[in-house]
C-alpha cells in the first residue's frame, strides 16, 4: 500500500484532523489510535485494523520503528511493512507476541512497551527477547517489508532502476567531484 492509497482511505472516511483528535484515546509515536484505526495527527493517512486490536497494531508499529529506526521516515511506511500481520490467521500469534512484549516491559517497570518513553529502554526490552521466534519473525519480515518499498528508497538516495532512462552513461555514473 502506498502513501497515496493510505491518504485516499483517510479521505474516504472523511476523517478530519479535529475528528481524529477528538475521537482518539491514546497517542503513540506520532500516531493517533481510535476505535479500530491508526492515523496520522494531520490525517495524511489512516489505517483501519481489521484483525488486530488497534493498540496492538500501534505497539507493533512502535516495535518496528525501534528495530529499524529511520527518524525521517514516517510511520505510514512502518504500518505498510507490518500490516500483513493484520489477518485472522496471524492475529493470535501477533497478539500473543505483543502481550509478551508488554509483559517484559512491565517486568522492567513500565506500564507497557509503548509507555517506555526512551528508545533505549524499549531497545533493552527488545534485546531481552531478540532470539525469540516472534522477534525474529517481525525483524526478518521488516527487511523486505520495509526496505523493499519503493516509496522509501528516495530517503536513502537510492534511484532504483535506470534502464528506462537509458542508464547512467549520460547521467552521472562517474560524476563524483569531491575526491
Amino acid at each position, binding site marked *: 500500500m502506498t502513501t497515496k492509497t493510505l491518504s485516499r482511505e483517510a479521505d474516504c472516511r472523511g476523517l478530519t484532523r479535529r475528528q481524529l483528535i477528538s475521537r482518539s484515546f491514546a497517542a503513540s509515536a506520532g500516531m493517533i489510535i481510535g476505535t479500530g484505526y491508526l492515523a496520522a495527527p494531520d490525517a495524511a493517512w489512516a489505517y483501519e485494523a481489521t484483525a488486530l486490536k488497534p493498540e496492538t497494531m500501534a505497539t507493533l508499529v512502535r516495535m518496528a520503528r525501534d528495530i529499524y529506526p529511520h527518524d525521517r521516515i514516517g510511520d505510514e511506511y512502518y504500518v505498510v511493512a507490518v500490516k500483513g500481520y493484520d489477518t485472522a490467521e496471524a492475529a493470535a500469534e501477533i497478539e500473543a507476541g505483543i502481550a509478551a512484549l508488554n509483559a517484559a516491559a512491565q517486568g522492567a517497570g513500565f506500564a507497557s512497551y509503548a509507555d517506555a518513553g526512551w528508545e533505549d529502554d524499549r531497545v533493552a526490552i527488545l534485546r531481552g527477547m531478540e532470539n525469540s521466534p516472534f522477534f525474529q519473525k517481525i525483524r526478518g519480515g521488516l527487511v523486505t517489508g520495509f526496505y*523493499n518499498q519503493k516509496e522509501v528508497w528516495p530517503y536513502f538516495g537510492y534511484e532504483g532502476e535506470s534502464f528506462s532512462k537509458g542508464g547512467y552513461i549520460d547521467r552521472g*555514473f*562517474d560524476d563524483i567531484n569531491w575526491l
Partner: protein
Amino acid sequence: MVAKFDLNDDSVVLVIGTGSGGGVLANELAQKGVKVVALEAGGRYLPEDYINDEWESFGQLAWTDARTTSGDWRVAKDFPGLPAWIVKAVGGTSIHWAGASLRFQEHEWKARSTYGHVAGANLIDWPIDAAEMAPWYDKAEAKLGVTRTGDRPGLPGNNNYKVLEKGALALGLKEVHTGRMAINSIDYDDRMSCQQTGFCFQGCKWGAKWSAAYTDIPRGEATGNLEVRDRCHVLKIEHDDKGRVTGALYADKDGNQHFQKARVVCVAGNSIESPRLLLNSASAMFPDGLANSSGQVGRNYMRHVTGSVYAVFEKPVRMWRGTTMAGIVQDHARFDASRGFVGGYELETLSLGVPFMAAFLDPGGWGRGFTSAMDGYENMAGMWIVGEDMPQETNRITLSSTVKDQYGQPAPDVHFDDHPNDIAMRNHAYKLGQEIYMAAGATRSFPTPPYPSTHNLGTNRMAENPRDGVVNKHGQSHDIANLFISDGSQFTTGASENPTLTIVALAIRQAEFIAGEMGKQAL
C-alpha cells in the same frame, strides 16, 4: 531451424545444464556438427524479460529449490536455506554473473606444489597448466569479449571505482584498474556497449554483458544441431550393464517423466546439483553414486574466500550507478606466504541496492547501529573480496536424509567449515579493504560477511590420479568414459579469480576433445 531430436536417438550428446559450462559446451559441439540435446531445469528469459528490481529479479531467476546447510560458515547461520545464489534459467548463472574475467595465475594451476602441505587441506595440482590453457583462454576471451584483452579497451570507471582507486593508490597499491570484464566497452560481436545502468546481477537488459542465454544458446540452435529443452529437470543418469551411461531421466514442466537416450552425457548443473545428480544416480553397480570410486564426488566443495567491505563517506558516492564490478585491486592476488596464508585474493568493486543492502550488510543486525549505516547508503562505496579457499574433504555436498525437493528426491546439504587459511585471508582482506576506504576519506566502514555462494566449485574435481578426484584433464570421469563434468565442479582448486572465464575455456577445450573422440569412435 531449431533441431528436434527423438528420445530414443542414442547418437546425441546430452548436456545437463546450460550455463557458462553447459551452454558453451552445447554450442561449441553444435558448431562442430555434433548433435546435442541440452536439458535445462529453468525457463527462458532474455534481456527484455530481465527485471531491474532486486527481489523481483531474485524471484524470477534464482535457484530456490529445497537445500540445507551445515558447518561453521556464516552463511549457514544467516541463510540456512539458501547456501548459493545461482540461477535456474536457460543460460544459468551466466545471466547473474558480474562479468569479471581473469585468467588463473600460472602458479595457481599447481597449488599443492606451490603452497606445499597445508594441514587440513586436500590440495593437489591440476593435471593441466597455464601453457596448456593459454590458447583456450584466448578463445574464451574472444568469445566473451573481455575488456583489456585482445584489442578491446577497458570500461570507464564509475563513482564506486574512483573511490576504490583513490584509496588504493594512496596506500601505494599498483595493480588497480577497471578490470577485465565480459561487458562490452565498445560494440562487439553483435552486442552493444555498456550503458552504465547498474543491475548487472539481475541480467543485462542491454545484452552488453556476455551471457550464454543470448549468445551461445541461440547460436547453437541456429546450427540445427542443438535442441534445448527448458523446464526439464534431470532426476537420474542411467547406465547399461557395461557401466556406460545411456541417458537421463527427467521431469518436464508438467512433471511428466521422460528418458532421453544419449551417446555421451555431460553434467553441468553447478557444483551443488552436479554431484547431487551423480549421488542420486546410485545403482547396484555404483552404490556410492556414479563416477565415485574415489569417494570424492561431492567433496572438496569450495566457494572462494569472500566478504565485502562497505564504507560511508562525507559526500555522495552513488555506487549503484554504472557497471557493478568494473574495478579491481590485484596486488594481493599473488602468492606471498609472509602474509600468514597461502593463495591470494582480489578486491573488486561491488554495490547492492537498498533492498539487498538491508538483507546483506549485516544479516540479523538491527537497531541504530544498523540503521545509521543504511542512512549513509547514498554516501557508500563497496568492494567484494574473492580469494582462494582451501579444498577440504569434509566440505561437501551430501544427500539430505530428511528434506526432499519437489520431485521427491533428497535435497542437497551444503556443508562448509572455514579453513584457518580462509579465515586468515579474509581478515587480511577486510583490514586492507577498510584501510583503502579510510585512505579515501571514509568516516566509517563495515566488514560485511559472505553472501550465499555464487562461486561454487570443486565437487567433482579434476585429478591426474583416479584416487584423488572424479575426472581427468578433459573433464571425463575416470570411472565412466562417456560421462563428463562440464562446469566449475571439475575445478581442482579455486585460484583467486572469478571462475567463469576458466569454466568457459575448459568447456571450449572439452568440446574439442569430445568431438575428436567421437570422430575416432573412441566415444
